[in-house]
């Protein structure tokens, strides 16, 4: 069964390749607002929503810390645990700024994830259609968009 699912089809091939090469257990591709474009490994919608919201919040916090330090920004963040690591990276694409959240286990490493993250970014930038940038999230249509995204990701 295919574990990688995408709301936007152009993200699928680069993401599948990244997962296969990096050994990532879970991966989310999303906008800075937490809208998910693709995911790998999640089996429950509630986990995707939580991970996307928390990942977007971490990136927003670190971006603000970077601003206070007069830094241009932190390109990647890595949280190393005993059994798992969390890697967060952001990049500019023709579809605007995008975030990638990766959870990796003992079969992978931060070095491998970083290495193949660079290739993922190249693949996504090359594959992204330029005509449409992600729209700002409005409270009025947020729930509908969220439900549509989750239906695409989980086939419900």
């Amino acid at each position, binding site marked *: 069964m295919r574990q990688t699912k995408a709301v936007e089809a152009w993200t699928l091939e680069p993401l599948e390749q990244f997962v296969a090469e990096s050994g990532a257990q879970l991966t989310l591709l999303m906008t800075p607002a937490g809208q998910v474009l693709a995911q790998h490994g999640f089996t429950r919608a509630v986990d995707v929503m939580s991970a996307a919201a928390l990942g977007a919040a971490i990136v927003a916090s670190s971006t603000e810390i970077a601003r206070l330090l007069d830094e241009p920004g932190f390109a990647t963040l890595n949280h*190393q645990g005993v059994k798992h690591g969390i890697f967060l990276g952001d990049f500019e694409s023709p579809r605007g700024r995008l975030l990638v959240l990766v959870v990796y286990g003992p079969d*992978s*490493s*931060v*070095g*491998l994830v*970083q*290495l193949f993250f660079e290739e993922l970014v190249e693949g996504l930038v090359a594959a992204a259609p330029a005509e449409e940038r992600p729209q700002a999230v409005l409270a009025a249509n947020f729930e509908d968009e969220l439900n549509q995204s989750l239906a695409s990701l989980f086939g419900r």
Partner: protein
Amino acid sequence: MSTRYQQALDSVTRVRGVRGAMLVAGEDGLIVAEALMEGVRGKAVAALAASLQKRFRQAMEAAAAGNPHFLHLQGDGGTLIVVPAPDGILVVAVGAPDMNVGLVRLEMLRAAEAIA
């Protein structure tokens, strides 16, 4: 980079045919110290060599053969050698296919001892 690490790597890169040497954090696959010729993709070699060493260590454990002391991959275009050092550090060298593997191995084992 610390002088001790630099000296350890210099002794490896002095051997003819060696294109570069690195100290790599074995669990993370990240470079601790490096002495590489231009064109060697250090980050990629470090991450993949650490991953390989981890897999080979698991294979050796499964075969009840203990821990690997030396990993040597010979390709058409070059050679990759990995020697585990104490504290989870790996000494990694890349070189020409015809480099003196025996001498490189000796220098890498000395480097592993020197950084302990």
